[in-house]
């Protein structure tokens, strides 16, 4: 890290740039209503007003400009209008376009001026033009301000991009910064940086070949760009700060089938490790041909405890996506939609998190309602299968007549939106919906426990249900049996792992053949997002011996209160299901004590462990390095731990900024850690 980057990082860390912030008036929507503007025109007008209110702001020693000075975005509807809309429509999350991956590469290369030339005089194109003009006008104001301050290089860069095609790596990074910045100002959120190492590589290579930049100076620019992703983090909407979808995906198979891991992929891993910030979030695509050295590079980053990188397996994801109807070239281009949901850049208006199937709750419900009448596991499985099918349909039934607030600016980054004058909010090439699946491991453990205790050992259903209702008080020996002497998913025990596979397959069966109102299909997944908190609150004590109040594990991970054999068994268990069928996404998470890494050779061993998961057909893996004592101390003395970064469910955040329930969950996970 150069002194300059160090200084900028410190300046930003101390929030010195926050002093330049001013708020937009909250009553902006009144103007739209009075003029009876259509929704897309309102979005464009608001973007214009937001960017007009922005004031150029430069960090000391600035390299990549653009910093938010307007913290808030007023709504484009007033309360009355919005409540009329919500009465008639299903609204997803905040209502904006979110969790997509814009095709930054094409827009950067083409330039906004060239896109502007393609626009007609139609109302929708006028909204697109207004958006482009707003971005270019703010860029001009930045350029003037830069010249006035003597920042000639910045001014010259801004004279070129994002209007025109970048001639250098620096211009390309600056263009991306502006384009991404304006997206947030349009009200869109969690839209990812995608395959940054692919679309940026030509600019870097050309600069290095021509000697315009040295490796050191180009790397400094990359780090300056990474820093810029953290400047406005506190302004992004999200469940918790850090949950903002600014993820990038490195390496992996290219559309032509060749391997994409390159010098820039490697630099991104290095920059993330040097800067130790929560953004951008790093994903690493791997496959059976990936050499161990790449895993080792990833593991060096894991060691630092940022929760990066998350691994994705091409060998599972690509055929899985193709089986869902994605074209081969598109499937090979997959990235992460914010956390870990698979999505295609520039082509998908998939809503990857439209709902969540609560596996543990479904199994628990069937046990409570039907166990006493059932005579075999076969009957129990039939009842659960029926309930999973019913629950999936119930979830989808509630999601009818979707309305998404239009985004004419973001639509510039998606295939066909400009040509067809169709806003991205209305759909794109792919319009699929994804369902998470929470608590699948505890659900499998419940089935394994019932199989053993009820159907093999002869405990009565009444006794089990009474024990659960009593939170096992007075039923200690049974509790011990359920919790410690029944098979558990994660211990490489087929008795439990077969239920894990069966539950996931049943979920995949349940969505097969279903369509949403946009003609898209439904994708089953293994993620949880924040649902693991909600779904656990609805449960009492469960048949796997889990006491009431114990949280469910996040994503595709083992139960939190069991004894695990270790990471080898864990990886073997969780790579048994055919994960191609549940490729909406959701990683296995493994926590390591930081003491594991005290010897350098441990890097290779952990890398081999990751490779094992990939070779055995795992889809996604995320490793954390934690120190439980430090987490506990950070709860008591947050002032000493402002830097402490932890992985939450699909993103990393600053531990001390999380709500206590998330902090507690991370501490509980750390109790299972492998040292």
């Amino acid at each position, binding site marked *: 890290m150069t002194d300059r980057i160090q200084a900028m990082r410190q300046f930003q860390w101390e929030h010195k740039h926050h002093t330049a912030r001013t708020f937009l008036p909250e009553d902006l929507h009144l103007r739209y209503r009075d003029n009876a503007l259509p929704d897309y025109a309102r979005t464009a007008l608001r973007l214009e007003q937001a960017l007009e209110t922005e004031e150029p702001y430069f960090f000391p020693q600035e390299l990549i400009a653009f910093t938010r000075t307007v913290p808030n975005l007023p709504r484009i509807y007033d309360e009355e209008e919005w409540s009329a809309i919500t009465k008639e429509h299903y609204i997803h999350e905040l209502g904006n376009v979110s969790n997509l991956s814009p095709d930054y590469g094409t827009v950067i290369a083409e330039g906004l001026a060239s896109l502007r030339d393609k626009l007609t005089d139609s109302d929708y194109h006028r909204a697109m033009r207004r958006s482009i003009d707003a971005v270019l006008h703010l860029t001009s104001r930045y350029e003037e301000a830069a010249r006035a301050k003597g920042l000639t290089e910045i001014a010259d860069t801004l004279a070129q991009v994002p209007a025109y095609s970048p001639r250098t790596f620096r211009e390309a990074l600056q263009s991306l910064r502006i384009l991404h910045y304006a997206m947030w100002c349009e009200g869109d959120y969690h839209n990812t940086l995608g395959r940054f190492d692919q679309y940026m590589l030509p600019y870097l290579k050309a600069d290095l070949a021509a000697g315009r930049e040295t490796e050191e100076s180009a790397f400094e620019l990359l780090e300056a760009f990474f820093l810029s992703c953290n400047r406005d983090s506190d302004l992004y909407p999200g469940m918790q700060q850090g949950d903002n979808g600014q993820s990038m995906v490195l390496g992996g198979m290219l559309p032509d089938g060749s391997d994409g891991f390159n010098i820039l992929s490697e630099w991104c891993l290095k920059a993330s490790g040097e800067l130790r910030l929560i953004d951008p979030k790093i994903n690493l695509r791997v496959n059976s041909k990936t050499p161990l050295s790449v895993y080792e590079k990833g593991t060096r980053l894991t060691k630092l405890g940022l929760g990066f990188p998350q691994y994705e397996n091409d060998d599972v994801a690509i055929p899985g996506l193709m089986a869902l109807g994605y074209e081969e070239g598109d499937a090979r281009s997959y990235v992460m939609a914010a956390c870990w949901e698979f999505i295609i850049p520039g082509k998908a208006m998939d809503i990857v998190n439209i709902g969540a199937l609560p596996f543990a709750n479904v199994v628990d419900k069937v046990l409570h309602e039907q166990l006493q009448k059932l005579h075999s596991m076969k009957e129990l499985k039939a009842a659960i299968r029926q309930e999973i099918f019913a629950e999936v349909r119930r979830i989808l039934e509630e999601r009818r007549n979707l309305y998404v607030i239009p985004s004419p600016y973001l639509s510039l980054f998606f295939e066909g939106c400009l040509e067809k004058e169709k806003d991205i909010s209305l759909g794109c090439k792919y319009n699929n919906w994804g369902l998470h699946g929470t608590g699948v491991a505890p659900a499998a453990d419940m089935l394994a426990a019932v199989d053993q205790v009820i159907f093999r050992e002869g405990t009565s259903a009444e006794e089990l249900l009474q024990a659960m209702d009593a939170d096992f008080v007075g039923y200690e020996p049974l509790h011990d049996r359920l919790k410690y002497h029944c098979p558990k998913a994660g211990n490489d025990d087929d008795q439990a792992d077969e239920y894990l596979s069966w539950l996931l397959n049943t979920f995949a069966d349940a969505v097969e053949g279903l369509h949403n109102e946009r003609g898209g299909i439904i994708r089953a997944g293994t993620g949880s997002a924040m649902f693991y908190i909600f779904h656990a609150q609805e449960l009492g004590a469960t048949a796997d011996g889990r006491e009431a109040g114990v949280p469910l594990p996040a994503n595709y991970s083992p139960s939190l209160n069991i004894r695990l054999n270790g990471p*080898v068994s864990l990886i073997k268990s969780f790579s048994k299901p055919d994960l191609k069928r549940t490729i909406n996404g959701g990683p296995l998470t493994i926590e390591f004590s930081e003491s594991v890494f005290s010897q350098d050779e441990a890097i290779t061993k952990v890398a*081999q462990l990751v490779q094992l998961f990939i070779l055995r057909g795992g889809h996604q893996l995320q490793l954390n390095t934690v120190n439980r004592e430090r987490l506990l101390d950070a709860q008591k003395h947050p002032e000493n731990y402002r830097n402490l970064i932890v992985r939450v469910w699909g993103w990393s955040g600053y531990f001390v900024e999380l709500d206590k329930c998330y902090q507690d969950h991370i501490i509980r996970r750390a109790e299972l850690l492998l040292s």
Partner: protein
Amino acid sequence: MTGTVFDIKEFAVFDGPGIRTTVFLKGCPLRCQWCHNPEGLSPKPQLMVSSASCVHCGACSRVCKHPDNCIACGVCVPYCRLGLRKIAGTIWTAEALAERLQRDADVYQMSGGGVTFSGGEPLMQWDFVSEVISRLKGINTAIETSGYTNDEIFRQAMGTLDLIMMDWKVSDPEKHRYYTGVDQAPIRRHAEMLAAGETPFILRMPIIPGVNDTEEHFQTAAEIVKDAKTLLRIDILPYQRAAGAKYSMVGRDYSPEFDEAVPPRYFLNVFDDAGIPYKVFR
């Protein structure tokens, strides 16, 4: 044949090359003052209680049938709501243990790893260990031993295992007996057998402040291995202050006669000068 095992640890990163699973065998003839596995000392299964978090609810006492003489029956274990009680020590048949270990043979092979037998003192249950090894197919095996056993068993171990990691604890014979409770002579003899033999080995030196952090100790170790053809390296293992953590759980006092707070001294120049490879585990 059966053996008593107090832990099976997957992905034991400090117990040899590659991805390894370590089997901890229960029972040890030594009583080293710095031992951090007190549950490995007794050869029998025993009750372990984490009393620090105990709220004295009395649930365990109410079900106890042997209040004056614990027989490790485990009846009380499920009644502790906080999960503070457990039985250390499980009886395994050689067949079952070999099957459990064989399951991950593919992982050991891809990573250049294998299985490590540790303890306690694994050679105390050598018949069981060798029976387990004879049932393993295509798995690299290693052992962590004090070297305190008879010559015949040590010779058999050298002929059976792929790697021997043996401790060289204290060079001065008098101090050795004082701090470990046993005679040094067989250990010295076995270290010399290793040095003269064909089996790849690592000599491990726990460095305890005020006990063996002397130049003479490093020189003696160098002397023993200086002509060894199969020495991989010497491991320097500095004293860990957490060593006493588990003593109260097995009802023992931890009262070492050395000052835990003093950082141990190293004389690595001795190995540098003699051209002996080594590694320090800090």
